[in-house]
């Protein structure tokens, strides 16, 4: 009897320790980022958030995160504007339109988009996709509106914030459409039947009965996509053009830029001073706060509608 109790106690302790370790991980993360960025924050203070310099020259060092905050926001905004509607359309297609012999393989294929590592997205975007975008979208827009609309000025050659935004849109499709699909499933069928019995078409049912019900859940799904786009690093480093300082604030869609994460990746291995490394980690701190905020907000919205499961379904 005593042995049995001892075995249970030991195992219980091991399990608690493992769970405690996961809490420790978040502490380690916060600590690492905080400790690494301590130097830059004591050097620049809160001016770090608003500054636009990026000068590693000894004696005149000065670093500011603002251009990269803007770059992150703009590239993510493009990703959302393009990616969220497409993801919603796919979720609606799978959940309301397609018969199961199409929707099952289709959802599997969409998941494949999530399985592709971002370095491979980067490779493809750098050597293939950007030429499509440049030739099919950017050049025509630039030729037609380059003089008149500031969005489309700047001679495009495909490595810019616009292309980054489009590829980010593709990358967020799996998560936004899959969570949206869960949300749509949670809308009770009785709502659909009520709309159909009043003579609504399928689109009208989606628009008047399903969307209003699912609104907050879909917002949560979109925010999860935003978090994904904001945090993406390697894809962005490869196609956003790699500029620093004020030049990183894009003056048009076809201009080069830099995001918080892409600059860290681009400069880390060549950083010349402790302060510069600390500045990069300061960017990491901004990134961490931003993504944690987005993630918490997203999960609040989603759980408002349904309980978020790990995706394990029967």
């Amino acid at each position, binding site marked *: 009897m005593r042995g049995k109790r001892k075995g249970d106690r030991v195992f219980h302790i091991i399990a608690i320790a493992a769970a405690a370790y996961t809490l420790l991980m978040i502490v380690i993360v916060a600590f690492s980022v905080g400790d690494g960025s301590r130097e830059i924050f004591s050097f620049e203070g809160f001016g770090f958030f608003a500054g636009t310099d990026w000068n590693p020259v000894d004696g005149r060092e000065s670093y500011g995160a603002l251009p990269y905050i803007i770059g992150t926001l703009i590239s993510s905004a493009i990703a959302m504007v393009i990616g969220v509607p497409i993801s919603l359309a796919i979720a609606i297609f799978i959940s309301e339109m397609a018969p*199961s012999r199409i929707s099952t393989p289709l959802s599997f294929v969409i998941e494949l988009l999530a399985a592709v590592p971002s370095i491979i997205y980067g490779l493809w975007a750098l050597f293939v996709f950007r030429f499509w975008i440049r030739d099919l979208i950017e050049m025509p827009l630039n030729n037609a509106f380059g003089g008149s609309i500031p969005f489309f000025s700047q001679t495009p050659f495909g490595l810019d914030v616009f292309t980054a935004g489009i590829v980010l849109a593709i990358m967020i499709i799996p998560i936004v459409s899959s969570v949206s699909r869960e949300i749509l499933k949670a809308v009770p069928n009785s709502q659909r039947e009520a709309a*159909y*019995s*009043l003579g609504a078409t399928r689109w009208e049912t989606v628009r*008047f009965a399903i969307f209003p019900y699912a609104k907050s859940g879909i917002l949560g799904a979109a925010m999860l996509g935003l978090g994904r786009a904001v945090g993406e690093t390697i894809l962005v480093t490869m196609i956003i053009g790699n500029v620093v300082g004020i030049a990183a604030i894009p003056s048009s869609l076809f201009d080069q830029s830099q995001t918080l994460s892409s600059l860290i990746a681009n400069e880390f291995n060549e950083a010349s001073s402790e302060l510069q490394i600390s500045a990069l980690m300061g960017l990491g701190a901004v990134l961490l706060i931003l993504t944690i905020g987005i993630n918490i907000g997203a999960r609040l919205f989603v759980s408002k509608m349904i309980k978020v499961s790990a995706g394990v379904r029967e």
Partner: protein
Amino acid sequence: MSSEESFNVDNSSLFKSLNDNTYGSSSATIKHYKLSIRNLDAWFGAKQALKKINLDIMPNTATAIIGPSGCGKTTLIRCLNRMHEMTPGAGARGQVILDGIDIYDNKRVDPVIIKRRIGMVFQKPNPFPTMSIYDNVAAGLKLNGVKNKGLISEIVKESLEAAVLWDEVKNELDKPGMGLSGGQQQRLCIARALAMQPEILLMDEPTSALDPIASSKIEELVYNLKKDLAIIIVTHNMQQAARVSDYAAFMYLGELIEYGPTNQIFKNPKKELTERYISGKFG
């Protein structure tokens, strides 16, 4: 149109496929049927749920569909407004003739549009939770292109009155529909269906989720509504059927066993199965 008027309409071509299960009168004074069901089969995947149903519904009447669970009552009325086939794997074959036109004739009838003329109320009240009471009732009108605000508000008032809900909510029309009690929500759904000015109202066990007081309110309004439309009400409550309906159809295992005036069905059933069900021996 009241049921006392009879029309010497020659509908004999419609009735060519009559068999012993129909209950039309002789061709001398054929009453004008509002809805005629002819040889209706329905299935879910491989399982057949309705077998050769033949039934005529009179205008301005309430017809109760009764029978034990699983007999196909709900399937039947869902076939009458073409909702049945929306379930994956479900289908129906046969004719459902509304005022001379078969609603299953896809060349002449659009399954979406037909629902404007045949309304439905469901077992569990399902008002739209994000809409106010007013918007709920107006929902069908707005969905189908009615924009005139004056017309809409007249119809909303009239529908809520017909559903005996107007007095209770007339000062709170902009409050959310979900804030009402269960019985009120169901009357709201009835008002919503009535706003479309349907010619036929299908009701699928509308009071089974409600308490007796709320149920009797709805029974009363059904009784009053049949002056304006034909109502087909599925119910497993035989007393309700006896109270509310003019005609009753008894179904068992997907077949129509007997159909006739309610009095006759309950007091003098012709089939033994009917008699056994009425006297509570099964179901």
